[in-house]
């Protein structure tokens, strides 16, 4: 018997209306996805495939037109999320921002302080902890974004392009964080265009194209079909 999935999406459709004439654009055309509990899952696809929209619907930032999303956690207090190209409050320091996020999860002051201190160390921002975020580089914002996604010690972590803007050192650190989350039994779902990272970190992947999941399986299965994950990806998205 299999355990309950961490994310179960079935028949998900999303249509938005754009422009003056409210033209209907179908972003998601029946997404089916199952992410097992404790997995590191890579959601891949070319730009505009619907990866970010799928995640946003899963989080309730957008409403589905039809279909369903079930998270295997009791609520958003058990979920961590890093948006794509994150932008945070300029006038707060890194420490204040993480403290604010901890408050939103209702963490007690002592727990919050300790969690913030540890996370600043994990993402290598101890020295910049009291610097205002407007002075952070893109890579530093990405790191603080990852830290805010983990401030509640979530069971399910959704990361949208977590490696964007990071230098090689930053990428190694983020990979370590993801590995450590996996070791602690957390479920990680991330979108990425960097297939070498996906190959290194993920056990399962799904490839989206034009609003649908067109392939879903293990990285090993993908590599049986093609010499590299990149080749397999190109084969699937151009098929």
């Amino acid at each position, binding site marked *: 018997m299999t355990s309950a999935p961490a994310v179960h999406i079935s028949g998900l459709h999303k249509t938005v209306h754009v422009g003056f004439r409210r033209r209907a654009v179908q972003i998601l055309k029946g997404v089916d996805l199952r992410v097992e509990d404790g997995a590191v899952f890579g959601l891949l696809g070319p730009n505009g495939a619907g990866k970010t929209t799928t995640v946003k619907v899963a989080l309730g*930032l957008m409403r589905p037109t039809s279909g369903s999303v079930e998270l295997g956690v009791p*609520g958003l*207090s058990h979920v961590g999320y890093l948006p794509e190209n994150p*932008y945070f*409050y300029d*006038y707060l320091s890194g420490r204040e921002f993480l403290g*604010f*996020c901890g408050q*939103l*999860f209702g963490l007690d002051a002592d727990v919050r302080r300790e969690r913030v201190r540890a996370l600043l160390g994990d993402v290598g921002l101890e020295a910049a902890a009291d610097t205002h975020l407007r002075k952070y580089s893109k890579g530093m914002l990405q790191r603080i974004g990852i830290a805010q996604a983990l401030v509640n010690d979530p069971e399910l972590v959704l990361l949208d392009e977590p490696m964007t803007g990071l230098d090689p050192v930053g990428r190694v650190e983020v990979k370590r964080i993801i590995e450590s989350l996996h070791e602690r039994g957390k479920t990680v779902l991330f979108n990425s265009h960097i297939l070498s990272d996906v190959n290194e970190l993920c056990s399962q992947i799904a490839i989206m194209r034009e609003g649908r999941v067109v392939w879903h399986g293990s990285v090993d299965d993908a590599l049986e079909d093609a010499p590299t994950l990149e080749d397999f990806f190109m084969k699937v998205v151009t098929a």
Partner: protein
Amino acid sequence: MKQVAAIAVNTFKETIRDRVLAVIVVFALIMIVGGLWLGSISLGEQGRMMKDFGLVAVTFFGLIVAVFVAAGLVHKEVEKRTVFVLFSKPVSRAAFITGKFIGLCGTMAVVLAGMGVFLFLLVWAVAGDASSMILVAVLMIYVQLLAVMAVTIFFSTMGSAILASVLGICVFVAGQLSHNVLSLTRLGKNAVTEALSWVIYVVIPNFSAVDVKAGVVGEDTLAWGEIAIWSGYLLAYVVVVLALASLVFRRKEF
């Protein structure tokens, strides 16, 4: 409640650290000092002119802060996509709107208290007839501006920040005149126009009913019972408008 408090504190930090706010306050203080000149050219009425002009300056600059800061509060979060961070956490739309409003109330209290105390000290030092009524008048300006802030936040959940600012100012101006409009339509004895002006009178609060500036300069006798009732009405109005803003904002997707 913890989320509301966190958002309120964050909004207070955001607005109080805004350099534009500091510039507006400096201008307001310069304007209040400008009342010295007006006082010097009005024979025997120096204190009265300073109070009158100073309270108008407090109202004007308070209104500028109220509408422009309130209009940007929600809009900036959406535009800069910080809402992704907020609403991916257990934060309801109502908690967001309420927290934003309370945070801005704190900033407005600091701004108005600063201007009010400055005016009080200036009148006391120059004309020697400062009364605590100056501070009461500033408090009543604060009550009016609470309603303006709530209305502006409501409009900002539906449209652009500029449109929300303009509509916020319109509501403030209309609220100063709504009582006169009602009185005038009563003279016409037309049931339809009178009913219409009643609707406007309820939808746009009667700000002039809590305006005690005339009382401060001794032009008017103040009916405190009526002022208290109208203040209660304005606070209830704030609650209703914020509830409507939350309802509208709940429908938003990001």
